[in-house]
């Protein structure tokens, strides 16, 4: 199931960024240099939950990556001014999870999602009861990470 989730969120993220940012990100692998991702990145997170699991989907952007996305969006518009990065990140993670929800529903996986939360942070790491999947992406050659955390719901 984790592989299905990852594929759906990955495809949705590519569609979302291509639509709003004008350029599709290039998906890398789940193996990347984690030291290249500091604990002070911009992070957008949405909680996901159904009867089988609880978890979250996060997008973790280096400053240079989100700056590049911001500039690509606003250079194409006639409106002026620098916008809040948190707003852009929140909307991208919202589009990613919202878009994947439809695809996953068709695959028989329904889930509820929370509103996006944004802030500063870094990667999470696998623990005994939490599975963490990562997928590295490059947007205009700049790195960002998609992180999917899931914990199976205990059944009586």
């Amino acid at each position, binding site marked *: 199931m984790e592989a299905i989730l990852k594929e759906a969120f990955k495809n949705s993220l590519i569609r979302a960024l291509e639509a709003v940012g004008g350029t599709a990100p290039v998906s890398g692998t789940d193996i990347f240099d984690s030291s290249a991702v500091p604990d002070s990145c911009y992070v957008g997170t949405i909680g996901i939950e159904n009867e089988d699991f609880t978890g979250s989907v996060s997008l973790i952007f280096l400053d240079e990556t989100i700056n590049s996305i911001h500039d690509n969006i606003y250079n194409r518009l006639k409106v002026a001014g620098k916008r809040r990065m948190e*707003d852009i990140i929140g909307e991208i993670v919202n589009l990613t999870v919202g878009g994947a929800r439809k695809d996953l529903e068709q695959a028989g996986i329904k889930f509820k999602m929370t509103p996006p939360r944004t802030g500063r942070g870094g990667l999470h790491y696998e623990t005994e009861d939490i599975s963490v999947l990562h997928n590295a992406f490059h947007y205009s050659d700049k790195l960002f990470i998609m992180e999917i955390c899931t914990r199976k719901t205990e059944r009586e």
Partner: protein
Amino acid sequence: MNMPVVAPKILIIDDSQMLTDMLKDALTTQGNFRVVSAPDGASGLAIAETERPDLILLDISMPGLSGYEICRIIKNDEKLRHIPIVIISALSADEDKEKAFIAGADGYLVKPIHIDNLLTKVNNLL
């Protein structure tokens, strides 16, 4: 002498400044509409009262009142209920759309919104 034609006015209610900027840009440059906007439901309702837009583009997930609630309030208001409401949301499941139409929405567009689809939907409802 012909009276000048006044471009239709569209109210965008969405807490995402980025999405609002993108929609505003498309509606004013490609659609020749006048656009006003609000970042939340409460101010959106106030602007709907004062500005009397020709159509409302309404997000669902916002702080405070949800898009469903705002839609119900507008459709229960005699002075505003004639205004077409198009929901614009990242929520794309069938049950989300069903809830929107039950609340009285006249259309539903899934984000990310393709500008051609937006302009077609808006023009069809005006």
